[in-house]
C-alpha cells in the first residue's frame, strides 16, 4: 500500500524550516532523504511520522542516537511492554525473539537499564521496538552517526536482511550521500526546507540536476578528495 502525505510543513521560532511538501513512498521501497545540515530533513521526517500516526497508519521513527530513544531510568523490559501497549498489541514473546535474533541482540538482559547495554545494542533495541507493530514505514534519522562504523555497518546489514522479506518501506534520513547511495534505491534531496530533487539513486549519482545535488554528489566520498 502506497504511503502518501501532502502539505507537510514546519515552523520554528517564526522561521519556515519546512515549506509545504508532498511525499509518496511505495510499499517496501527504500528511500533516502539527503541534504546538508539545516536543510529540514529531520523536520520532514518528524512531520511525516506525526501525520501518518494521526491518520492511524503504521509508522515508526528511530531517532539518531539511543540517548534520544530510551529512558535511562527504565529497564529494557519496561520499554518493550510500553511500546507494545502504545500501539495496542499484546507482547508476543515469539515475535520479540525473532526480532532480537534478526538484529543480533538476543543476549541482552531485559532487566538491565539501557546503559547496561552497549550503544550499538541499545540502538538495535530501539530499531526492534520500532518494528513491533510491523509498520508500513520505518523512518531512520541518521542511524549511523552515533555509532562507530563497525557497529553501524552491522546494524544496517542486519536491518536490511530483516526488511528484505517484509513489505515495510524505509526512509533513511542522512547528510551522507555515500551511505544513502549504498542503501537505498531512490533519493530525495533537500535544501532550505524544500525537496529539490527526487530520482532513482543510479540516475541521481550520474546526473544530478540542482546545485546542491551536484555538491552532494561531488563530495559523496573521500576518494575524490586526496588531501
Amino acid at each position, binding site marked *: 500500500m502506497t504511503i502518501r502525505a501532502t502539505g507537510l510543513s514546519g515552523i520554528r521560532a517564526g522561521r519556515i524550516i519546512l515549506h509545504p511538501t508532498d511525499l509518496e513512498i511505495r510499499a517496501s521501497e527504500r528511500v533516502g532523504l539527503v541534504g546538508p545540515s539545516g536543510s529540514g530533513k529531520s523536520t520532514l521526517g*518528524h512531520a511525516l*511520522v*506525526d501525520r501518518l*500516526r494521526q491518520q492511524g497508519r503504521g509508522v*515508526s*521513527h528511530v*531517532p539518531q542516537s539511543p*540517548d*534520544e*530513544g*530510551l*529512558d*535511562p*531510568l*527504565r529497564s529494557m523490559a*519496561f520499554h518493550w511492554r*510500553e*511500546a507494545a501497549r*502504545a*500501539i495496542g498489541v499484546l507482547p508476543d514473546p515469539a515475535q520479540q525473539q525473532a526480532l532480537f535474533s534478526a538484529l543480533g541482540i538476543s543476549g541482552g538482559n531485559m532487566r538491565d*537499564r539501557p*546503559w547496561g547495554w552497549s550503544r550499538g545494542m541499545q540502538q538495535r533495541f*530501539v530499531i526492534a*521496538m*520500532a518494528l513491533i507493530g510491523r509498520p508500513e514505514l520505518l523512518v531512520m534519522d541518521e542511524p549511523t552517526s552515533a555509532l562507530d562504523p563497525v557497529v553501524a555497518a552491522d546494524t544496517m546489514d542486519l536491518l536490511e536482511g530483516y526488511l528484505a522479506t517484509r513489505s515495510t518501506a524505509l526512509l533513511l534520513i542522512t547528510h551522507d550521500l555515500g551511505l544513502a547511495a549504498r542503501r537505498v534505491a531512490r533519493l530525495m534531496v533537500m535544501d532550505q526546507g524544500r525537496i529539490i530533487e527526487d530520482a532513482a539513486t543510479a540516475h541521481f549519482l550520474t546526473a544530478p540536476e540542482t546545485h546542491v545535488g551536484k555538491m552532494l554528489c561531488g563530495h559523496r566520498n573521500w576518494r575524490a578528495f586526496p588531501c
Partner: protein
Amino acid sequence: MTGLVVGLILRAGVVLTGAALATFALLWHAPGDPALAIALARFDTVVPAAVIDQLRAEAGLDGGFWQAFLAWVAPLLVGDFGQSSVTGRDVWPDLVRAMSYTLPLALAGLLVGLIISLPLALVATRRPGGWLDRCAVGVAALGASIPAYWLGLLLIMLFAVRLGWLPATGARTPVHIVLPAVTLGLGVAASFTRILRSGILDARAQPFLPAFRRRGVACRDIARAHVAPHAAIPVVTVFGLELAFLLEGAVMVETIFARPGLGSFLVGAIEARDFPKVQAVVVFSALLFVTFNMIIDLIYRAIDPRIGEHNA
C-alpha cells in the same frame, strides 16, 4: 549491596565521630570554668573551692581533654547519654520527652510544605513563564525570604488575637500544633516549590521524550513513568538537606510559640552550662541527620542505579 550498606555505615561513623569531637572540643574550650558553672547551677550560691574540685572530678573534667572525651563517648556507644551535670538525672528520658514534641512538629511542617508545594509546582509548570508560573515563583521567593519569627508573630496576630480561631502558645491540645506547623511548613514549601518546579521542567526537557510520544505512548503515561522519576531525583536530594532546616526551624518556631521541645531543652541546657545535655542534643541530631541521609542515599540508588555505579 552489602558492601554498599557497610560503606554507608562507615561513612556515617566518620561523620558522627567528627560531630561528637567538634562539639566536645568547642564546649571544652569555651571560656569560663565548667566546674564552677555546674556548681553555680546546682547550688545557686557561693561554693567553696573544695566542692568545685569535687564536682570537677565527678564530671570527669580533671583528667585532661582526651580522658574526659573518652569518658563521655564510651557510654554513648551503648546508647548511654549520661547524666545532667546540674540535676544528676539521666539525660535520655528528658531528651525523648523533648523529641516527642519536636518530631511531630517537624513532620507536620514537612507535610504542610508538601501539601502546598506539590500542587503549586504542578500548576506552575503547566505553562512555564505564564502568569501562574510567575506567581508561584514569586510566592516561593517570598516564602524563602520571610523569617520564621516574623511570620509566626503575624500568624499569631491574625489567627489567635484578631480572629481567635486557633490557640497561640503552648502544646496542650493537638490544635496547638497548627500555627507552628504552618509557620514551619511555609518555609519548607518555598524551597520545595522551587526544586519541584525546576525538577519537573528539566525532566520534561529530557531528549528522549519526543521519541516516546512518536512511539504512541499516551501523554499521561509519559508523565507518570518517565517525567516523574526524573523530577523526583533533585527533590529526594533536597529532602536530606531539608531535614537540617526542619530541626533548626523547629527549635526557632518552638521558642516563638512557647512550645516545649528540643528548642527549650537546648536553650535551658546552654544557659545552665549543662554540657552533657548540649552534647546529647548535638549527637542525637547528628545521628538523625546521618540516618536520614543514609536512607535517602538508598532511595536515590533505587531510582537511578547509575549513581551507585559512579561511586564504585
